[in-house]
């Protein structure tokens, strides 16, 4: 395989699609051949994404897919499962950002979504999150990028499983705070600036679909609640964990170092001085980093685990490119080396 590969993005006018285009444009090994959009067909990519005005590329119809080495599909839930054959015809490697291929069984789609039209793909697809599934990615031909809130939660809790602090039947509350880009590029009254500014809005009090994904990959049933807050990028998961026995700060450091000591994109931040003492979305905004950290609450025999990601990066497009890098045998961090800003408002 040559080092210069071609790539396409279905759903290129959306938020994660635009992020993919940005990442692929700056990636040493990819050349973007196509970006699709039905609503913006024939318009320049820069018409929608002002940061990509320098790209000499126009949106084309998703009906006319060009042949590429890797096809990223960033469409709403349900679209990819309908078009998967066309996608696989167009590219040897398909990386899908929707929920369509994340779970392993049709029954889960019946329970949490509206069923599945091609359940035979569910076994074949690989979950993209390298910290969880790196070994199965090389050569994978269908990769499912994780959900943003699930990714944040899984990253935070995984070390506790790795270290045997959690077994899966404990009580865990996950209280998530997310930015407006999670909702995608569509317009609605609830997401208008006047209605959505300055909020702490319980937008998924219970029953959020990412519970299924967390259960699938951690074997843990969590009590999950998501709030929308006033930022654009970012997802922060606060996990309140009640382990069976006492756990010390030292145990926790050991667990986190054990799980992430060699991971290029995970940083443990747990206490210390200065303004930024725990994971915060601001600290990772625009980057593919996940920050994880914790505090121990002996009085309540509770562990509090914090996890912060940029939903557009580690929570979707960045994770997708990371997985594609591994799948295709490229340098794992290629195109993902941006380390973030300070100061930064709310990217």
């Amino acid at each position: 395989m040559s080092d210069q590969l071609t790539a396409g993005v279905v759903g290129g006018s959306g938020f994660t699609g635009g992020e993919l285009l940005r990442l692929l444009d700056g990636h040493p090994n990819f050349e973007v051949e196509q970006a699709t959009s039905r609503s913006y067909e024939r318009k320049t990519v820069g018409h929608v994404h002002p940061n990509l005005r320098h790209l000499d590329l126009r949106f084309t119809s998703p009906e006319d897919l060009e042949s590429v080495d890797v096809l990223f599909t960033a469409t709403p839930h349900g679209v990819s499962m309908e078009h998967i054959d066309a996608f696989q015809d167009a590219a040897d490697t398909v990386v899908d950002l929707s929920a369509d291929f994340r779970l392993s069984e049709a029954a889960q789609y019946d329970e949490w979504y509206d069923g599945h039209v091609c359940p035979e793909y569910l076994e074949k697809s690989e979950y993209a999150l390298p910290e969880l599934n790196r070994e199965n990615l090389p050569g994978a031909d269908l990769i499912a990028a994780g959900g943003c809130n699930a990714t944040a939660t899984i990253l935070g809790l995984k070390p506790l499983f790795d270290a045997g602090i959690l077994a899966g039947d404990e009580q865990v509350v996950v209280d998530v705070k997310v930015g407006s880009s999670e909702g995608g590029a569509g317009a609605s009254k609830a997401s208008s600036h006047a209605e959505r500014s300055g909020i702490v809005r319980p937008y998924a009090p219970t029953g959020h679909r990412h519970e299924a994904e967390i259960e699938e990959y951690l074997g843990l049933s969590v009590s999950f609640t998501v709030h929308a807050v006033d930022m654009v990028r970012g997802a922060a998961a606060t996990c309140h964990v009640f382990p069976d026995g006492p756990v010390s700060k030292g145990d926790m450091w050991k667990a986190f170092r054990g799980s992430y000591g060699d991971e290029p994109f995970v940083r443990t931040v747990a206490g210390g001085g200065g303004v930024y003492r725990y994971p915060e979305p601001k600290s990772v905004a625009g980057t593919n980093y996940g920050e994880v950290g914790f505090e121990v609450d002996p009085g309540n025999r509770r562990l509090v685990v914090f996890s912060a990601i940029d939903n557009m990066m580690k929570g979707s497009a960045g994770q997708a490119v990371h997985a594609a890098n591994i799948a295709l045998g490229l340098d794992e961090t290629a195109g993902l080396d941006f380390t973030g800003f300070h100061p930064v408002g709310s990217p």
Partner: protein
Amino acid sequence: MSDTITAEDPLSGEEIELPADVEVGEIIDSPATGAELEVVSLDPVTLEEAPELEEDWGE
């Protein structure tokens, strides 16, 4: 990438790329200026600034 042809942007004078199959009357945006342009003739392709699309823009 699909086939493209070049034309002159009427606002900036810059050479710009357009899809090869543009048609007379089509409104297309310019990669040089972002402006909406109308294709007024083909062979060679000639462009004019499109009449303002009074899109509501948030007032």
